[in-house]
């Protein structure tokens, strides 16, 4: 089937998880592996039917470890590969997420978050994995993570996640939660030709990896994908630019850690997206994902009551939008960070903002429930007093 006919162009009324699955199809994804888990299962359920229709493969693995490993293998075989899970699955995948970072493997990892710790509450959304996706695998690294606020963005940001993964040869997270995943709303799927897609650069000619730079280029080395006679050597152990293991040269060790980090950080302006609606505001409500919907409603209510409140949304959670938060802090008197957790992004936001304004955290009335806009406004008034 041609790429032209992959996208289900039109207007739909569907779940966020449907949007994610169709976003993957529209992005050209042709390999998905996963293990059943609430509240993410609908993505895999739909892809198991859709992928064979467009020439792809869906593999239900024996566990989430196998899922992440098999999509890494598929990505090295030239596939656009994705896995989908929830927090417990991410916990199991962490070691091999580090493998994908270290071997510069393009992947999309969808995390439809649920209440934790541990088995927690499968059907209740909670932003419990914000830090574990960025810091959960051992060692130092940078990750890309996007936070959809609606079923439409489950579609749009899944495509963007694939484009970023292919551009930067890196694993990219889509950080949804059970609320967004199960929410039904309008999803507009554009005509396929209007969907901009990025494909990875592939090493053009064969020979030996000793004559090429296959890894550790801050501007992203072409990928020596398997099956093309490139004799690629791929290891997550400390390696040089050719991919060859080196455990003796401190300079190689330094580059092995630093280059994949610099690859993300030096392109952060292209990666980082925020939505700033704080023009002339005194108070900024900073949030992401489903909570940003409550934040907007609360800002409207507050303005009706004469309090000058604006909203600021992290579309990209990682790499952390440090400069954008700094600029925001210098333009308002106060920042209130709203998260459906006990404050996972709050320390990162505070570190960039506290020099310029007051920074508070506000969780929901009851953890796992989305903030009531009236509750947010009442808390603003209380704290303003």
């Amino acid at each position, binding site marked *: 089937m041609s790429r032209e006919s992959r996208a289900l162009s039109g207007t739909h009324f569907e779940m966020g998880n449907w949007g994610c699955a169709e976003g993957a199809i529209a992005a050209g994804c042709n390999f998905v592996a996963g293990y059943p888990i609430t509240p993410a299962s609908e993505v895999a359920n739909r892809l198991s039917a859709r992928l064979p229709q467009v020439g792809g*493969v869906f593999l239900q693995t024996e566990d989430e470890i196998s899922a992440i490993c098999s999509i890494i293998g598929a990505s090295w075989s030239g596939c656009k590969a994705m896995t989908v899970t929830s927090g417990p699955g991410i916990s199991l995948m962490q070691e091999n997420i580090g493998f994908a970072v270290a071997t510069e493997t393009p992947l999309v990892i969808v995390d439809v978050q649920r209440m934790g710790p541990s088995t927690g509450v499968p059907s209740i959304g909670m932003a419990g994995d914000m830090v574990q996706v960025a810091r959960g695998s051992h060692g130092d690294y940078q990750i890309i993570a996007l936070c959809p606020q609606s079923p439409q963005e489950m579609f749009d940001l899944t495509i963007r996640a694939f484009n970023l993964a292919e551009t930067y040869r890196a694993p990219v997270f889509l950080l949804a939660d059970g609320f967004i995943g199960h929410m039904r709303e309008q999803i507009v799927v554009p005509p396929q030709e209007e969907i901009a897609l990025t494909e990875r650069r592939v090493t053009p000619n064969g020979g030996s990896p000793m004559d090429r730079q296959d890894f550790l280029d801050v501007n992203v080395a072409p990928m020596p994908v398997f099956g093309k006679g490139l004799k690629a050597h791929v290891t997550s152990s400390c390696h040089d630019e050719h991919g060859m293991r080196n455990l003796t040269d401190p300079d190689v060790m330094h580059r092995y850690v630093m280059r994949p980090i610099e690859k993300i950080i030096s392109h952060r302006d292209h990666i980082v997206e925020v939505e700033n609606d704080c023009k002339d505001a005194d108070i900024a409500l900073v949030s992401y994902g489903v909570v940003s919907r409550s934040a907007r409603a609360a800002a409207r209510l507050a303005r009706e009551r004469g309090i000058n409140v604006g909203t600021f949304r992290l579309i990209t959670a990682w790499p952390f939008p440090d400069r954008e938060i700094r600029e925001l802090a210098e333009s308002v008197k106060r920042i209130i960070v709203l998260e459906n957790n006990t404050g996972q992004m709050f320390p990162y936001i505070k570190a960039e903002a506290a020099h310029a304004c007051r920074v508070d955290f506000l969780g929901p009335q009851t953890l796992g429930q989305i903030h009531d806009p009236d509750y947010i406004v009442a808390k603003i008034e209380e704290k303003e007093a």
Partner: protein
Amino acid sequence: MSVTEHPLKKYTRSHITRTTTCPGCGNGIAAQAILRGIEELGLAMDDFVFVSGIGCSAWIPSPLFAADTLHTTHGRPIAFATGVKLGLPDKNVMVVSGDGDLTAIGGNHLIHAARRNINLTVVLMNNSIYGMTGGQTAPTTPRGVKTITSPYGSLEHPFDIAPMVAAAGAPYVARWTTYHPRQLTRAIKKGLQKRGFSLVEVITQCPVQYGKASKLGSAVNILKHFKENSVRIEKARQMEEGDLEGKIVVGEFKDIEKAELSEEWVNLRSSMMEVGA
């Protein structure tokens, strides 16, 4: 003085001039059996992807073999290789790793790949111990053997790997020792030709760690032990269980045909595409 090049050197990366294996290790016998099998079948290294895990035997293909090589995390090479094979169904995907990697930390992937019947050729090097980390008890260490983590003798029962994988559904399963390089080469060739999951278990010597733990000593002594205690499976089937105590059953445990996963996917996709068109 003329220099004779090793006949299998053409299959190795030219800049790799040494291996990481200890003197007396069985890795070299297995490496030669694999490359000789590839040569005898007339296969090209560009038609291979080699996948290995963590442990001494994972160093057999990586970085030595001049092919696409994927050196993965501990226990997971079969999971990685499953994705590689489904992405490149026309390539030969071979996994080379050890008993600790493939039956302890990675045991679940081994039996599920056998159940799925995905066309991977798995060369499982079984040295009955953890060599690289310094001689700890493995799931294959015989009962009573004193290792660094079973100083009073192992209290556990070992896996009998080949029949376990056969029971999990693999259509081709063979076991040989490093004393049997010709039989081993034939089994690897047969595994490569099998359209399905094939396991070749290689009982191999680790004189440095297992030689010490088992008191079998040097590589030569362990190989003599393999020679004297190996029993062909055809003969073993006629023997009483008690008489097989301490013996190594070698030969072909399974050789059947059954539907293979990567081919099934190719078939499903082409039938779906026809429906779509």
